[in-house]
């Protein structure tokens, strides 16, 4: 826990003239298990993408696994970092046209290079490892099924198997249980926790009941800023309710709208406020 895995200082992410993320100071030790919570659009995914260089910081210092991500880091540097970071994304990042097993083997691309990786002729030990990973998530029977023929939950599990094969030092899981039924959600959380035994785990979670499975420390994001950063034991329903409640400064549009109650909001925003 002494080693620092991630360190952010005065980081700001800006897109289309809007600050998506504005973090004063955040440091995460190696081996910590962090959950990030916050409303839709709070900047949770943006924060995770910042950590792997998929989203540049407008200013500030970003250090991940001892690598400096400031300015525009060299592609080689970014690739070296990404090999050590396992990611599970909201968009279920799999290659649809490849089989489940091949998708899992993508996790070994950091170790398998050259022509072997071009024709996907992986060494036997990697294939064995990938099959073991698929077995661990209970999908060995579907190994040859194409990823775009799998259900949402099955894809999520394939992504986790890929993570097991990648053996990363840092795991970023963006709503890993989004498409799963309650039983599968619990199962996937256990798998993630297992994969993260020797790694740092940062996950974005919406379901409060899953928090204890995945985290010791909870960071609440609100409009791109850190609202709280507390050990899991001190996070209660009241704090979460406060976090998800819209700001007083920007009250929700009254519903239904009336002539005396016009709104400048677009249709989409109105619906998202309803939820």
């Amino acid at each position, binding site marked *: 826990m002494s080693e620092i895995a991630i360190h952010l200082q005065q980081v700001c992410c800006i897109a289309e003239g809007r600050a998506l993320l504005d973090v004063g100071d955040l440091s995460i030790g190696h081996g910590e298990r962090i959950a990030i919570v916050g409303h839709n659009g709070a900047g949770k995914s943006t924060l995770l993408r910042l950590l792997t260089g998929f989203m540049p910081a407008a200013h500030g210092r970003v250090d991940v696994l001892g690598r400096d991500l400031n300015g525009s880091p060299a592609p080689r540097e970014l690739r070296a970092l990404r*090999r050590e970071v396992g990611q599970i994304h909201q968009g279920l990042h799999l290659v649809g046209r*490849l089989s489940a097993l091949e998708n899992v083997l993508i996790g070994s691309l950091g170790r398998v290079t050259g022509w072997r990786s071009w024709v996907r002729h992986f060494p036997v030990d990697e294939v064995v490892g990938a099959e073991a990973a698929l077995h661990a998530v209970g999908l060995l029977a579907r190994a040859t099924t194409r990823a775009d023929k799998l259900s949402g939950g099955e894809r999520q599990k394939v992504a986790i198997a890929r993570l097991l094969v990648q053996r990363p030092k840092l795991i970023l899981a963006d709503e890993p249980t989004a498409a799963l039924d309650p039983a599968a959600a619990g199962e996937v959380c256990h798998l993630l926790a297992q994969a993260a035994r020797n790694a740092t785990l940062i996950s974005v979670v919406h379901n409060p009941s899953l928090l204890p499975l995945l985290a010791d420390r909870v960071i609440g994001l609100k409009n791109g800023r850190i609202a709280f950063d507390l050990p899991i034991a001190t996070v209660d329903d009241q704090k979460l309710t406060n976090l998800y409640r819209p700001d007083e400064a920007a009250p929700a549009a009254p519903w239904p709208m009336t002539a005396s109650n016009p709104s400048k909001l677009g249709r989409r925003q109105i619906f998202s406020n309803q939820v």
Partner: protein
Amino acid sequence: MSVHALANHVVNRFSGRLGFLGLTLIYVLLVAACLGTLAREDELSLGRNPLANLVKTVGEFAHPSFLDVWFGNPQLEYKSDDGTVLRVENRQEVEADYLAGLGRATWTTIRIATLGSLLGALLALPLAVLTARNLAAPKPLAWLAKGVLDIARSIHTLVFGLVLVGIVGLGPTAGILAIGLHSMGTYGKLFAEAIESLDMAAIDAVRSVGATPDQVFFNAVWPAVLPQFVSSHLYVWEFNIRDSTILGLIGAGGLGLLITEATSLFQWGRLSTVLIVIVLMVSAFDAMSRRIRQALS
């Protein structure tokens, strides 16, 4: 207001419902102008007695030469004016010769289409890579490639053929080059679209494990693009098999030559035989390529 904002403004104008209405109106006016001017020039007539002509033509086409010969009288007698038989011709033998020639011409047509399509696809590939917007090739190169593809697409195979016959002489080579040059434009467009509709999530998936650009290409881009390439190749190839039948008209050989012959000798029965062969060939290829495309999707 910046130029960019102004451009956006104009585009928004045209994408609204009113804009669509305006475009529809312009289209209706264009159709009306086409019809109106043709009518004024008195070019919309169907000839003197279209119905009788139609019946006559259909009647002649209903007797394909090979059926006529096999089920009709096999002996054709050439008689002099006083009735003595000069020569007896076995029509079946003549027709068999003709069918053999038809077979050779079909094979020539298939060869022209196949090699021409392959040539077009190979020429188009680098140009498509340059024009695909998401690959962001250097602007001048992209424009140049797009220009070449647009020109190739807008010049008809037949025109290319006429020019090429003058350069490389009569024969299949001119046909192959003509097909290749024209379909290069079609291929380029289809290939570029395949590249542009790439699944970016798959690319991100592979990039997110720290894969090198070559690994990203072979594990995310290639698997996604290859089936689309094969599918467009089959599609254009099939189109070219149809298209290359016409090339005989300009002396490139193949079925078109037989069509010219039959029409200029008014042998509608033979023309009917040739057309039956073309229909069979095209639908056989179509069925085959559809199978393959289904298997690939």
